[in-house]
């Protein structure tokens, strides 16, 4: 398949860009941050997302969704990255919808997927526990109790954790941290007894939470997929999340870069536009090339996910690793080339730097994914 957008995909991008740039420019995020908005995103906008078919973009048509693919989800993520719009799209529409679609039984799908598609249900995957993304290190315990299970442990960096209506919790039902065997996913009501949610205000002013589970009782029905066998499901779903975040980082990088190049063309020092200095020109050119290469790698990964999620792992590792280094470089050069201006909170560029840092940690950083590729290649 060609690594360019089809006409339909370009139309999707245009409509997403129209909505997002109009309703949620960077000032939207700034306002949410400064007003300490308790929700952390705009419910009105989420409503528009549902109306336009974005909330259920990946949800199969039989459940009221659009039944589109990961390339399309990446298109939305890229536009989100351009304005840093806080949105449940990643946690609910990409990750949670994929977990349910790929791993849920008929009852679970029909209960939740249509609500995701119509925008009435927010869901999120609770996976990370330590400082770094290490899915197999999951140690939150789920022990059998009566007909169901009891969950105890803690999760960190749960996106939209404080507003979610449904938590999808990765727990260990057997084995020990580091093993593939023994992982199980549970659907947990955040209002259940023993769940304590602390919203964490993060550097990027996007939603995240730490959640503690103290002997939280769940029924056997709340198991998603097979007991002890969630590793395979998680691999795929996390790769879907990674592809989406890589796309967000491409949008973010491209936007920062565009703003920086504009600045090079307008700021004068030494009687010249600073964009005339070759030291800056060459760095800008290198960054442009980096972004284009990362864009292609990300499209490749999203197409690979559409073709076969299981086989897409190496392409996803490449994309997420590249996206991390490229976005990091883009925001650093962005701040540097704006001089003192780049350091001010009043100026938007810092928001991009902060979000890039969070995206880099989400679902594994560049080091993590580079390591995955090395292992896959057997050295």
């Amino acid at each position, binding site marked *: 398949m*060609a690594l360019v957008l089809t006409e339909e*995909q370009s139309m999707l991008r245009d409509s997403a860009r129209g909505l997002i740039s109009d309703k949620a420019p960077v000032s939207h995020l700034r306002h949410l941050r400064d007003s300490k908005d308790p929700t952390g995103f705009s419910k009105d906008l989420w409503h528009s997302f549902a109306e336009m078919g974005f909330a259920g973009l990946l949800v199969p*048509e039989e459940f009221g969704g659009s039944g589109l693919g990961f390339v399309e989800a990446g298109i939305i993520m890229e536009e989100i990255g351009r304005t840093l719009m806080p949105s449940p799209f990643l946690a609910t529409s990409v990750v949670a919808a994929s977990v349910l679609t790929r791993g849920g039984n008929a009852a679970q799908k029909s209960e939740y997927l249509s609500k995701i598609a119509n925008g009435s249900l927010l869901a999120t995957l609770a996976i990370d526990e330590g400082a770094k993304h290490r899915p197999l290190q999951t140690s939150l315990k789920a022990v059998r109790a009566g007909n169901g299970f009891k969950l105890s442990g803690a999760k960190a960096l749960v996106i939209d954790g404080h507003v979610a209506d449904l938590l999808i919790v990765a727990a260990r039902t057997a084995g020990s941290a580091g093993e593939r065997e023994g992982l199980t996913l549970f659907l947990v009501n955040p209002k259940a007894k023993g769940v304590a949610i602390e919203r964490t205000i993060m550097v990027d002013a996007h939603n995240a939470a730490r959640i503690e589970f103290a002997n939280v009782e769940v029924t056997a029905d709340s198991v998603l997929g097979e007991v002890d066998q969630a590793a395979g499901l998680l691999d795929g779903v996390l790769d879907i999340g990674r592809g989406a975040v890589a796309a967000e980082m491409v949008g973010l990088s491209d936007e920062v870069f565009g703003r920086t190049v504009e600045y090079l063309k307008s700021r004068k020092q030494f009687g010249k536009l600073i*964009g005339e200095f070759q030291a800056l*020109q060459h760095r800008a*050119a*290198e960054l442009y090339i980096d972004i284009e290469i990362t864009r292609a790698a990300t499209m490749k990964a999203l197409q690979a996910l559409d073709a076969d999620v299981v086989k897409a792992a190496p392409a996803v590792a490449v*994309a997420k690793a590249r996206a991390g280094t490229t976005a990091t470089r883009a925001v650093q050069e962005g701040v540097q080339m704006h001089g003192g201006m780049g350091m001010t909170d009043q100026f938007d560029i810092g928001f991009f730097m902060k979000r890039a840092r969070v995206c880099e940690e989400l679902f594994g950083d560049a080091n993590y994914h580079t390591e995955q590729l090395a292992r896959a290649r057997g050295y």
Partner: protein
Amino acid sequence: MTDLKTSDSESADLETFRNDTRAWLEANCPPEMRKPATSDADVFWGGRNAKFSSEPQRIWFERMRDKGWTVPDWPREYGGGGLSAAEHKVLRAEMARIGARPPLSSFGIWMLGPALLKYGNEAQKKEHLPKIAAGEIRWCQGYSEPNAGSDLASLQTRAESDGDDFIINGQKIWTSYANYADWIFCLVRTDPTAKKHDGISFILFDMASKGVSTKPILLISGYSPFCETFFDNVRVPKSHVVGTINRGWDVAKYLLQHERAMISGMGERGVGRPLGQIAADSVGTDGQGRLDDAMLRGRIATFDVDEAALAACAERAVDLAKAGQAHPAFSSAMKYYGTELNKRRHEILMSAGGVDALEWESERSRQGARPRAWLRTKANSIEGGTSEVMLGIVAKRILDLPGA
């Protein structure tokens, strides 16, 4: 929202083409030609004095030539295969799948052909393209001069009008394989009074012409693939000018885009054993089977990430061109990254090989193949326009930065 779904109508035809191609390659590509070329003898350059280094090399070349697949996407009337961009992509992918070598390598294919297809007149196309496709004539490139390298447009080789002919005098340098080439495509100054970009013509002539001489130059790799080339009153018909007289710079630049695209794809990308495993052979592995040098392993893994990403970008560049969305200067971006990456690859190979990679003359080292290849790659970011020049082009033509 369902109408947003894509449907690929061509895909069925392409699938048939893929299956046929796969079967044909399986039946026709000799096993010996499914290994990466490791020396210049493994590369078939064609030309009047061409010799095949092996029987499989001859068979493979002749079979591909007969299908027009030495130049798969050129029109059939000029000896090409007449494939569409999508079919060409499939053929490349299928050749890569079995590691098939290019049957014919030549400056005619990579550089002159595309320029002739765009700027040549019908007589020139009919005369030269089929001979390139059939590997009958080997070409060299007469661009650089001692005082015109990065600043190519300051070239001084003169072509003076004499009736229907030009008389050419001057010197070129770094002319790759000038001593083996049959013909040269050459930049000459036809109007010394015009501004430097405006007085240049792009002209073709036979290297056997009276007054042409070459003197090989030895490279740091110990090989001598290029020459100083001298022109002493060489007489060339004016009909050999490609495009308009004094507008040769347009042709020259267009050709450079193709040259850069070609150079950016050089290197053994994605074929043969993974770099990490080559390194493990000499460095060894730890208890968990990992390369027993954590820093080197990290460098290799980062290289692998970048190489895979670049491959996607190269693929996308072709797709963008097909969709009419490509920026003409994008080949400079690819050239920059591809050559710097290839240099990184060979630095890693040297580091991985350690002392074993230092032998220069022995059977064991295949006459120092690894260090010689390493040294050769240093030219990648110089030939065809240096890395600094590539970044300048991106800054000016793509980013539109001022004064670049």
